[in-house]
């Protein structure tokens, strides 16, 4: 097991290297010049040239690339042009904001989504099953920007119950923070919740018609144990796959949701970095996202092995 994990970690390195290369190429392909963006429209050509030298952008592209790789290997992810702060500090500053809403949204989505999926599977073809599955279909297909704007319109503009944007502050009491989180969380959890509901339902339906479940009932095992222990564990792998992807996207933040609610998280930061041609920040953030996805995938594979003993990634090693 330990050997497998180490092997998988080593396999991640080429992936990350490819991501770094592509981000470097793509950022350089965006039209625009970071030096000119920083100095503004009034800057003279000489000022811009001086700035380019300062940022190291006057060097040939291949040399910039090598510099970047060498820096990253020394764990130096560069300094943001726009904020004039190390990229790592900026990520460390924004990540808690993003996690604050994304983790809450994920937990809500997981509990309600899996719960709804279990209910639907156990009451297949009942009225509530149809209602839940239609809601889940709406949930996965609804455009997030539209949902966000509608939520703001109804709960902030019309009803005036919840604040439309911002983060609130603990100084104004806990409710201020919570009330600012409700709408973004609701917006964020819709798609994962619907996905969990649908995947749980289909996976459970497949499992509860298995002979092994019938055999458990024939052995007089209690219905609670049959469903929540045996059937759920058998049905878990696809749910864990979806969960892994959702955990990863928790860290990357939600560009649309964060923009609608002016939430200062990773999503808004990368949008700003792209509009300002902040090469270092874009590269740093994308590399960070890639790292998160790679690690979460690794984690998911490890969890598979724990859930289902038949899964093994060692195959080729055995002689």
């Amino acid at each position, binding site marked *: 097991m330990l050997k497998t994990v180490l092997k998988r970690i080593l396999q991640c390195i080429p992936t990350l290297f490819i991501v770094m290369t592509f981000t470097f190429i793509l950022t350089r392909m965006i039209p625009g010049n970071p030096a000119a963006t920083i100095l503004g429209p009034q800057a003279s050509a000489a000022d811009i040239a001086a700035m380019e030298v300062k940022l190291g952008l006057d060097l040939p592209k291949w040399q910039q690339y090598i510099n970047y790789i060498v820096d990253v290997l020394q764990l130096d992810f560069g300094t943001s042009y726009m904020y004039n702060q190390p990229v790592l500090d900026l990520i460390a500053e924004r990540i808690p904001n993003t996690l604050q809403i994304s983790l809450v949204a994920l937990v809500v989505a997981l509990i309600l989504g899996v719960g709804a999926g279990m209910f639907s599977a156990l009451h297949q073809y009942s009225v509530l099953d149809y209602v839940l599955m239609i809601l889940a279909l709406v949930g996965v297909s609804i455009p997030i920007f539209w949902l966000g704007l509608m939520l703001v319109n109804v709960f902030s503009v019309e009803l005036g119950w919840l604040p439309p944007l911002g983060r609130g502050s603990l100084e104004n009491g806990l409710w201020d923070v919570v009330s600012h989180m409700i709408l973004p969380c609701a917006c964020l959890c819709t798609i994962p919740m619907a996905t969990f509901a649908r995947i749980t339902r289909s996976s459970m339906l497949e499992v509860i018609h298995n*002979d*092994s479940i019938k055999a458990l*009932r024939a052995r007089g095992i209690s219905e609670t144990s049959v469903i929540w222990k045996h059937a759920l564990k058998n049905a878990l792998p696809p749910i864990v796959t979806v969960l892994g992807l959702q955990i990863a996207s928790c860290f990357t933040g939600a560009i649309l949701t964060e923009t609608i609610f002016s939430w200062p998280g990773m999503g808004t930061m990368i949008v700003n970095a792209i509009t300002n041609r902040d090469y270092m920040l874009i590269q740093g953030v994308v590399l960070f996202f890639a790292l998160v996805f790679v690690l979460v995938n690794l984690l998911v594979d490890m969890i598979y092995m724990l859930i289902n003993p*038949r899964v093994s990634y060692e195959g080729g090693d055995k002689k």
Partner: protein
Amino acid sequence: MSESLLTVNGLKTYFYTASGVSRAVDGVSFTLEAGEVMGIVGESGSGKSVTSNSIIRLLPPAGKIVAGEVKFEGRDILAMSKKELQEFRGSDIATIFQDPMTSLDPVFKIGKQMVEMICAHQKISKEDAKKLAISALERVGIPEPAKRMESYPYELSGGMCQRVIIAMAVCCKPKFILADEPTTALDVTVQAQVLDLLKDLQREMNTSILLITHNLGVVWEMCDKVMVMYAGNTVESADTKELYANPLHPYTWGLLDSIPKLSDENKSELQTIPGTPPDLRLTGKCCNFYNRCPYMTEACCQSVPPLVEVEPGHFVACHRQNGVNKLVRNEARGEVSCHD
């Protein structure tokens, strides 16, 4: 007279499907005494498994028991609450299913599954349950039982899995074992071992067994009495020896003729029963076997033959075993060969 262990009376289990009502079991009755082994034989779709699943009330949602009664030691199984049913399954009545590889939960260790089952029915500690499980595994001939407790089902062969399932079945000392084609998924040598094991356990514990099979050889080895089913109904039932010595229903003849014989020196062709079983949505108006029966008469197309006791303990449902047209097997054979 004391109560029979299991009484099934006029059991009717129908499946309500989009294309109509399928009469999977249509009025089956039998009794089973303590310590008795009874076989139900018939081809696929004759209602054997639905009968056994009706006894433990484990039917798929489309299947409904519409009539009849099933009593176990005088208790009405069909009237049991979910809770009572749960206690009853596994402790009084153990079930062994056809495919051992799919009868165990693949994601839990064997020991864990056995302990869970024992603890569900007996008020003993986990440690004691574990000891009981190990001794049961030992009893069914599993080498290194303590080690096997830590195995997952996929690490065992089919025969081993079936032994584990039998060990589980006997852990709670059931009075009755329902064995639904317990050897069909196993290869022949393992089949014999599993059957021997079942028979030994049955003698040791004086358990009753209802053995569902389509293999008449297995019935001969194992059973005290046999019921032959066809298209959801009993066509013949008798003591095993009586049935083999004096089969009365043409369908039973067909089944017996289609057993390959090693002693057959002429290497004659293996007999089969021509045709296919009827559509279960359309049965119940005439003899279900009439379209495949070489001895069919007009009466066969007009009414369902009742199950009649023609000799003590020997029941048959055939118009031609009743009254003037009485068939005798050897003569009937001649009758058919004349047709040829």
